[in-house]
């Protein structure tokens, strides 16, 4: 006697939504369009309206509490300065240059980390939000199943773009040479795609786990090895063979490689495909779970 949407339906809906899910905020309407299609009783226009209203809600939060932008602004500043001035000299030498060589190496890597950092925040922030009374109200309204989550992701991607802009400003100040603007935009686009996929993972943790603290701890445990077992901060050539194999398919490493290729030249294809495969896979797997958990929470 359960008319709860069966997992299959949810999966189908989300699979249909997948291709557009992973794209930048500019294409957000496409996201809701895909769901509107599957969720036929709520028209597309309503979906846009609901998601738009909820985006406005999340933006008002930022206006009410501007300090919530600190992470997006300070993280790229601190990490760039830290890595360039602490490791820049010694790693730069092994790259056959100096600190300047390391700046060119590490900035694309830091760009790859932006999505990861924002996504972690999504999990903890949404967990707190999810446990508040207002979610009960949202869930008792005749709105699309995913609206609340889509809106959250769109706003987080906007925050991530702010972080990317800050990163590039600091990078230029410490000597990064932007040689190829289209490449830079492509790299930011790819980082956004992967960022949104990671956000679905953390939204799932956010709606599943009991407390914001456990979401944070869990995120830290998963992301720490991915972050350091990668080519983000240093070339992988000197790492042991097994670790190199790991980095080969580590999405963060692939994203860093692809971003590096796009921004300063070098191979792009392998990193690009591995990153896209991870992005599509994670979204297809986690978005339906997140939406289902969101709807059926006791």
């Amino acid at each position, binding site marked *: 006697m359960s008319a709860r949407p069966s997992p299959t339906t949810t999966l189908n809906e989300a699979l249909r939504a997948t291709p557009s899910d992973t794209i930048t905020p500019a294409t957000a309407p496409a996201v809701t369009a895909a769901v509107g299609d599957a969720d036929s009783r709520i028209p597309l226009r309503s979906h846009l309206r609901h998601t738009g209203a909820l985006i406005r*809600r999340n933006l008002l939060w930022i206006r009410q509490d501007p300090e919530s932008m600190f992470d997006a602004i300070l993280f790229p500043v601190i990490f760039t300065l830290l890595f360039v001035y602490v490791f820049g000299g010694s790693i730069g030498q092994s790259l056959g240059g100096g600190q300047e060589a390391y700046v060119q190496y590490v900035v694309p890597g830091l760009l790859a980390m932006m999505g990861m950092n924002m996504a972690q925040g999504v999990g903890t922030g949404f967990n707190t939000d999810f446990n508040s009374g207002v979610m*009960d109200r949202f869930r*008792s*309204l*005749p709105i699309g199943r995913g609206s609340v989550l889509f809106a959250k992701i769109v706003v987080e991607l906007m925050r991530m773009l702010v972080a990317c802009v800050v990163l590039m400003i600091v990078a230029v100040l410490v000597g990064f040479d932007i040689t190829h603007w289209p490449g830079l935009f492509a790299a930011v686009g790819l980082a956004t795609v992967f960022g949104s996929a990671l956000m679905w993972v953390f939204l799932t943790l956010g709606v599943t786990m009991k407390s914001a603290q456990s979401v944070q701890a869990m995120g830290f445990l998963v992301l720490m090895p991915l972050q350091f077992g990668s080519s983000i901060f240093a070339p992988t050539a000197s790492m042991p063979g097994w670790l190199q194999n790991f980095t080969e398919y580590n999405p963060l490493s692939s994203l860093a490689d692809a971003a590096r290729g796009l921004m300063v030249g070098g191979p792009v294809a392998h990193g690009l495909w591995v990153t896209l495969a991870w992005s599509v896979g994670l979204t297809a797997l986690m978005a339906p779970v997140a939406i289902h958990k969101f709807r059926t929470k006791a």
Partner: protein
Amino acid sequence: MTRIDTKPSGATSAVTVRGLVKHYGETRALDGVDLDVREGTVMGVLGPNGAGKTTLVRILSTLLAPDAGRATVVGYDVVRQPRQLRRVIGLTGQYASVDEKLPGWENLYLIGRLLDLSRKDARGRADELLERFSLTEAGKRPAGTYSGGMRRRLDLAASMIGRPAVLFLDEPTTGLDPRTRNEVWDEVKAMVGDGVTVLLTTQYMEEAEQLASELTVVDRGKVIANGGIEELKAKVGGRTLRIRPADPIHLRPLARALDGLGITGLAATVVDTERGSVLVPVLSDEQLTAVVAAVTARGITLSSLTTELPSLDEVFLSLTGHRASAPQDTVPTDTREEVAV
């Protein structure tokens, strides 16, 4: 979609619940609940914490799926037609369900947009409801800065945006001081005047009497009594005497004396220090007379003597022979303490 008429009188049932069951592991939160709320009436669901009241409201507002049984609201099935159902209900949760970071106006505007009002209509409705719930002044402030009463009023306003046919109020005044509670009651009465059907859960007989025309008493997931308020009051039979000595110094001697009378009312004699009075439950006019005689015999001057409705505990004791399953304060605003004799 068919409407289900359950009352032979022809009155349409706005909410129909049949054999509703919900388990949480071993716990049976709802254990076969039947309920009918007629259109345009206020149904009070009275019970202690853990009786299943909130679970019932969550199922009726589609937040929770039942394990067995069925329920319809204005003819829509909670499980099969959740989307249509959500369009005709309003919900005010036990804890104010407003976004504390958003200003009051923005809260209402957001809900309006989520209910598919145009920008203009959503703005108009937000202004109108802020005005009606006396929140216009505070409309620009984040709801987190509101007092408890203001937050509840905003919450009620938010549930009224879609002009719901049925309103669910889950313990609307829990945790409010007496003045604020009266404010909320007035608002609810005004809404009922507009023809909304209300299902309200409460732990307080007084609240049920103020707002509801019919009452369903629940305990441990089961309905233990239902009917009109007057009918149930007659069934319970008890009253509570509130005796206030002119001099508070007489409070405890008075309580001790009354306790010594051996009146076996529905509950123990208690002292309400905050309001300087002694509460004695009595069952009959003889008992009432005996209490008055005892007070006179002691020569204690009284400033007032009033009869009150029985508390939840007393209602339970008379209906089931046991106290409400989770002991608690039975009158929202009182600080009662048992007399230590």
